[in-house]
């Protein structure tokens, strides 16, 4: 009798444990802290790649060449399309914002609003022509045109077996002279991640 009861209670405990649910725990952390959970492209990758690539682009000869040819004028840059050709959904708008921030903070270039942002600004300027006072209304057709456009791609190669995968990301950026289509800088940043998943847990 006792043996059977103990056996059945043990089985019942195992069964109950398997049905137990996990509770949530929230911990606040610094926004620049590197946290890798799934191994997918994340905010840390975006930030680090942007920092490194913009540091590179701002340290190259094209800026001095432009300054020399234009009486010390700062080059005006716009960030164009960054195409995601990887096997992950990557928030390229976050990456573009990281690039824009690093470009502006570098202080060596001027920066203009993107195509989508310009649309809203133009609409506002048009509205001002009829509704704002003459001295405060901003002039139409007075925008600063960009000299260079930064374009690029994010690609990835994944090699995976059961429980393990290696993901290789390559970010390629090119800075192109808008007037001449001349490429003045090409940069590439590579990231390799090994993601392992345990076969079992308690």
């Amino acid at each position, binding site marked *: *009798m006792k043996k*059977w*009861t103990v056996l*059945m*209670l043990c*089985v*019942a405990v*195992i*069964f109950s*444990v*398997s*049905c137990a*649910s996990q509770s949530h725990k929230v911990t606040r952390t610094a926004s620049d802290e590197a946290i890798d959970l*799934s191994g997918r492209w994340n905010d840390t990758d975006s930030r680090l790649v942007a920092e490194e690539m913009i540091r590179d682009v701002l340290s190259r000869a094209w800026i001095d060449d432009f300054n020399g040819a234009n009486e010390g004028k700062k080059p005006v840059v716009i960030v164009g399309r960054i*195409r*995601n*050709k*990887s*096997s*992950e*959904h990557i928030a390229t708008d976050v990456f573009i914002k990281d690039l824009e921030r690093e470009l502006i903070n570098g202080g060596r270039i001027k920066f203009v609003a993107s195509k989508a942002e310009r649309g809203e600004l133009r609409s506002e300027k048009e509205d001002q022509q009829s509704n704002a006072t003459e001295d405060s209304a901003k002039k139409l057709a007075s925008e600063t045109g960009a000299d260079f456009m930064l374009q690029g791609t994010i690609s990835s190669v*994944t090699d*995976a*077996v*059961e*429980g393990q995968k290696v993901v290789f990301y390559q970010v390629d950026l090119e800075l192109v002279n808008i007037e001449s289509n001349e490429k003045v800088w090409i940069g590439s940043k590579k990231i390799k991640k090994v993601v392992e*998943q*345990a*076969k*079992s*847990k*308690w």
Partner: protein
Amino acid sequence: MFQRGSIISIMLAAALFLVACGTSKAQYAGVDDKLRRGDYVSVVKQISDLKEKEYGEKNRVLFYLDLGMLMHYAGQYQQSNELLTQAENAIEELYTVSISKEAGAAIVNDNTREYSGEDYEDVYVNIFKALNYLALNDAEGAAVEAKKVHIKINKLKDKYPIEDEEVKKQELPVFKESALAYYMSMLLYRMEKAWDDAEIDRKKLMEAMSGQKGVYIKLSNPEEAITLEDEALATAIPEGKGVVSVVSFNGLGPEKMARILNVNTLGGGINISSRLDDKKDGAKADVRALFQYPQMRIPIPLMPPGYNFTVEFPEMVSKRPMAHRIEVVVDGAQKMDLFPIENISRVAEVTFAQKIASTYVKTLIRAGVKFAAAVVASEAANKAGGGLVGAITRFGTSTIASATEKADLRLSYFFPGEAFAGELALDPGEHQVTVTYYYGGGVIHQEKKTVTVKEGDLQVLETFYLGSQ
């Protein structure tokens, strides 16, 4: 003496298990008719309402797959993508097996595990996500999904290597490339005007069909192979034209049914008979015998008579689609039949067959231990307490042991059975496209769509009819 309390404690413990013992299919009651009528909204409501009652946390992958696919058919592409992504992430997360839940499965049955999806579900989830992204005009997102399909199929090749002795011995057909996945990526490369990449995928599509004879067979007629002439599919968009690619899905995917083995002990031997049960009516099993093995008698010396056990194994069974032919007519004049490109049900069967051997072994060991324990306990009770106690114990232990041996029949319900495709080069401008599904000479479903063709562009038009026989 084997006390009455022992029997009660066994019964109580067993009752605990029985609560979560078998697979319920109650959530699918009446859905076939609604799908035939194209009433996807009503099926979405039915499945959503039963989230807690019939699915729960343990079957979240099943819920996300079921509702995600239904949302796709209902044209709710954003929600479909969110749900299918949740399914995909949960499948990945459940690769890590919980030892405590495995212990439950080892004692009770596979239904105690969290449902982690079948291989084919994990592959095709990305095909439908790609179609969702295309419907949302996000070709870049669709391309991401197409790449994921290829990564997952490569993983399958490593999971079930063809060099594996077991696979070789059983001569099972192996799924190692998907023509549908290559067709999707070929379409996306053509949209990007990446002609070389598109041509590579076109060749791989042809190789997938010709190199997997056991997989590329028609769902409506398994005797007939799915083949495609090399010139039937071109990557180039003719000068001055635009291309409309029609991708159509037909019928429902397979269903898991229970192969029930009845084991009756006779003096000095056992009788084994078998039947197939679809268990469609929820907790109450539909006991129609769909297939009957010849009864077998196996002599076992000293086997006591009078025990009756049942054990169940899952079996993947394809459903025949109602439509046998799909025709496309443009502006009432230009006609063509779509060609079958993938038998999704067959891929499900083939990938399931590669892993089922281990399920059979585990089930037989578990059931054997339960049945042996039942026989030993009953015989001890019979010896100690006499005929009546022995008879009650024999009945009780046999019933409990059998009741806990239920097959894991969980499988998403709403993947289609097969895929068709076809392409039309049209002049720029607006066109009326009519897609008709035929059974014999009769029309069973028709969809009419207006497409605006631009020169040099390619667009995808998706249709589906999920009616199955």
